[in-house]
């Protein structure tokens, strides 16, 4: 037997509205609400809120499902997805390689300069046959 004098907490009010409250406590909450109009108004506002949400979004349930979301179509397509991912990986790797080669050119240019020597806009870019492999002259 629950003690009817135990005050109802805010958590219990939410649980009551969401049908998460143990059945034996529901009666206590209902008695509490009839004695506490502020809490009763809050509970009512939450119920109105739920109705507004359903009124606004339930119509989506009745919409025809777009073709692009059809299971059969999606099951047939994963290969395209894999090719797409492979292509993206390839592009990313190519990008990383060219970045690395730019940086290695930069290093080579700096190492070729003597201390104090000023180079005026005459950078010569020599194609590095394999930018991934360190060239012999580089540390």
């Amino acid at each position: 037997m629950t003690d009817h004098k135990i005050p109802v907490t805010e958590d219990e009010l939410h649980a009551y509205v969401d049908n998460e409250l143990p059945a034996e406590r529901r009666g206590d909450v209902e008695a509490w609400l009839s004695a506490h109009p502020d809490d009763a108004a809050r509970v009512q506002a939450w119920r109105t809120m739920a109705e507004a949400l359903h009124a606004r979004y339930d119509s989506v349930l009745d919409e025809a499902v777009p073709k692009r979301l059809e299971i059969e179509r999606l099951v047939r397509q994963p290969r395209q997805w894999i090719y797409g991912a492979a292509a993206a990986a390839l592009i990313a790797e190519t990008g990383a390689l060219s970045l690395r080669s730019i940086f290695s050119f930069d290093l080579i240019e700096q190492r070729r300069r003597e201390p104090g020597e000023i180079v005026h806009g005459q950078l010569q870019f020599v194609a590095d046959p394999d930018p991934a492999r360190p060239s012999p002259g580089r540390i």
Partner: protein
Amino acid sequence: MTAFRQSVEAMIPALRRYARALARDADVADDLVQDTLVRALRSERLFLGGDVRSWLYTILTNLNKNRRRSLARRPQFMPLLDNNPDASGTEAEGRDITRALSTLVEEQRAVLLLVMLEGLSYREVADIQGVPIGTVMSRLARARAHVKASLEGERTALRRVK
């Protein structure tokens, strides 16, 4: 069609509703649903039984979190008015609730929608978000208080104009 695919397919309307409320924009919402379905179908062989419904909501919730995280790095242009409210309900009410939702932080909006719109239990939402039930309940309480204040604020503003 396998039983797994059938149970995924049966969830599409509810996933679209959740995504629409979560993301507001209908095309973005369907993108989220499509990504969710692709991931679920790819993992068909890894799925060892259990609750397909909760699992799909989990994928969608996480995809949306990632989407918003990447959006946060760019400047956003939010439409001031939702020009495309769904037909049901009065349009003004629909706009009010949509706007109130848009002011919630991501985790609170997801909890509110999963509980109030999708009818999931606190336990299920806790598993979806990977947090204790107490966190779900405090997020829900804050979300409800915020939306209530937002709706009442708009009503007061309207009354003042009249």
